[in-house]
């Protein structure tokens, strides 16, 4: 297991290095410079300023500099936010994004699982159709439409929840619900299909024959097996939440990382583009790693197979 983990960590680092390299060169293909008031400056002035940031150097030299600094853990200083360290910017903004993402993922998974289980047990009944209807809604309504609607109804008209801003737990409720819709929809659909399949398998029949109670069968045998495929989609869903949060953070005026990333690309803020890309990729690679470990927890066969390698 330890060897397996170490091996995975090495692969993760290689993946990140490749991503960093590709992003660096693709980013440099973007036209223009990272200067904020490029349209106000003469070409000579631009050259003067680029000199200070080493942007007049040949590309390979810049690349070597960047990777050398990266190895030291130095992500550099932002261009748009004069001289603010990129690492500090990411650290300061990850909190709200992470809290929101986790809340949405947890609530989305729990509600999704419950809905999926109900739908499967009450197969082809009113409950099943109701759960399916909710799932279709959750997938087809974009989260920003839902967010805007909630903001207007719950925030402005009924004044039950604060419209926007980030000043405490109640401020997280609406954005969390808006973000979790997609998760609920996906997980419930998946859970329903898997559970139905598992319920029809031979060992469930065996368990029934042995006289184990219906609830015992579902909780101990069926759900646990149905969970394996469901865990596989948590990784992609987490990524979906990260990208979905761009819009949600904007609508609810949340000081998160998402908007920062988009803006840095528009403004050619090289250091921030690199920093956030590496951060997001690291997070993604890490989530995949955690999901792999979780397989082992849920299904011992996978753990053993991995261990023998």
């Amino acid at each position: 297991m330890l060897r397996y983990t170490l091996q995975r960590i090495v692969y993760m680092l290689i993946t990140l290095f490749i991503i960093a390299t590709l992003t660096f060169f693709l980013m440099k293909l973007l036209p223009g410079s990272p200067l904020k008031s490029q349209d106000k400056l003469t070409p000579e002035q631009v050259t003067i300023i680029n000199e200070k940031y080493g942007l007049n150097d040949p590309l390979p030299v810049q690349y070597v500099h960047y990777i050398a600094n990266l190895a030291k853990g130095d992500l550099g200083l932002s261009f748009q936010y004069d001289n603010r360290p990129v690492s500090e910017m990411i650290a300061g903004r990850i909190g709200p994004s992470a809290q929101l993402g986790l809340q949405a993922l947890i609530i989305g998974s729990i509600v999704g699982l419950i809905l999926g289980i109900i739908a499967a047990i009450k197969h082809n009944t009113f409950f099943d159709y109701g759960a399916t209807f909710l799932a279709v809604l959750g997938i087809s309504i974009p989260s920003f439409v839902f967010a805007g609607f909630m903001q207007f109804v719950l925030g402005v008209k009924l004044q039950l929840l604060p419209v926007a801003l980030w000043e405490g737990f109640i401020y997280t409720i609406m954005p969390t619900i808006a973000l979790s819709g997609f998760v609920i929809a996906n997980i419930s659909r998946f859970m329903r299909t898997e559970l139905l399949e598992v319920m029809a398998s031979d060992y469930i029949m065996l368990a029934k024959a042995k006289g184990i109670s219906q609830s015992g069968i579902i909780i101990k045998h069926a759900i646990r097996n149905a969970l394996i495929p469901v865990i596989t989609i948590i990784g992609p869903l987490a990524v979906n939440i990260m990208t979905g949060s761009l819009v949600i953070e904007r609508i609810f005026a949340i000081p998160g990382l998402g908007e920062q990333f988009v803006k840095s690309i528009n403004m050619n803020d090289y250091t921030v583009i690199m920093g956030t890309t590496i951060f997001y990729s690291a997070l993604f690679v890490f989530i995949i790693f955690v999901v792999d470990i979780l397989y082992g927890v849920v299904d011992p066969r996978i753990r053993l197979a991995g261990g023998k390698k």
Partner: protein
Amino acid sequence: MNKKFSFLLVLVLALSTFLAACSGGGEKAGSDTKKGSSEGKSADAKKEQVLNLIATSEIPSMDSTLATDSVSFNVMNNVYEGLYRLGQDNEPTLGMAAEEPKVSEDGKTYTFKLRDAKWSNGDAVTANDFVFSWRRAVDPATAAEYAYMLYDVKGAEEINSGKAKPDTLGIKAIDEKTLEITLKNNIPYFKSLLSFATFYPQNEKFFKEQGKNYALEANTGVYNGPFTLSDWKHEQSFQLKKNPTYWDNAAVKLETINFNIVKDTATAVNLYETKKADRAALNAEFVDKYKSDKNFGTSPDTSVYFLRLNEKNKVLANRDARKALDLAWDKKSFVDVILNNGSKPAYYLVPDKFAVGPDGKDFRETNGDLGKLDVEEAKKLWAKAKKEAKFDKVTLEMLNYDDDNSAKISQYLKEQLESNLEGLTVNIKPQPFKQKLDLESKGNYDFSFAGWGPDYQDPMTFIDMFVTDGAHNQMGYSNPKYDKLVADAKGPLLSDLDARWKALLEAEKILMDDAAISPMYQRGTAFLQREYVKGIVEHPFGGDFGYKWAHIE
């Protein structure tokens, strides 16, 4: 069967606890907001001097030397102060300067006496603070993008391009409170320039103590303006508090200004509706909804938007073709229907209510509108151009940004121009911000949507863009008469301000007659503002607002 039922019961129970938790949270939230609004009401009753505003982005910089954007300038205008500050009438009024300066015979040397002012940490504001900050701004090692703002000061350009040492800059501290400034030219707008951020003083001792962290946080900056930056939660909010050490603090009535950073217009409006914000800017879709609201207002800005007509294109090299293009589209309905945000149609380059001449008249009042919609004339000129430039059909590419708003603008222009000018096809080319600027600077476009905001309070900031081979003349326009007028206004006529003003007026007329550009609109903003907010001053350049004289009634 029984067991199946019990399992369901468990599920239902689990679900209901979850739902109960939800509604519990909801109730708590409800009571919280109610408490919030009752607090708001009692605040109204006591007329607490707290203003709640919205900023559209994080403050990119609090270092006055490095800042280049409107959000930074707006905060700086209220927490820092230069030798002058734009007053309630938008004329430069004395700030850190104790009295009007002694100006030498040739108008190039200014000697200022500083008033007895303090930084918020108790240090005195000294002449050296100005010397330090100005030298730092032009030093190429600082890489300040707005270093060019100081190019009117003697030696600035040479220093900035690395040809001279920073200490050769034309600014000297005679003693602690006396400052001598030497200019390259005796420019008439120097006082208003002195109110601009790049010209603010910086506390050298404090700057060096803070090192890399200078002005990155609320407590690593030091303030000499009407307010201090008392709290700064990045990307979330910031707060200004009345500055007790400010020399004119008796005039400052507001105790606190809270800014929340909100990027979405609809969200800002919703915050205004729930009384979390006292003012919210509107975009076109909200203007229709709130037009008749008693708290609705519009304010003109001094940015002017226009079409660059690239003379590298054979057709656009023809004056009549350009003029036809300018006259052929309806600017009035463009502003009313497409923008609908308080902007005004522009038939000019120098904005309205921006610069007043030596005769006491606004530049626009004297020069008026130059070239209104005239489709008949446009058609005639277009026909003439076809003969002169020998074309029958032509396709022109319109370069624009790639956002929704720009798409609407391009579409409108395409329709208007194609229907009024026979044989013209307009291809729209939307490009990302930086790519658009890049294509423009390389001259790879036919015509493009562009804008300009003033750097100083004089028509020259607009006029000198279009001299032959000027860095911002990205369309190959050239007229020796125009160049001569601009050169005169920058040189010999500086000693005869009446003649200089006439030269600037004449230059604008020539530019419009040549149809070097097709002006589009002067930007405006529509907003909602609570009726109890009084005295916010809107400035034509530098920071957008002055809160020094604002109060809650």
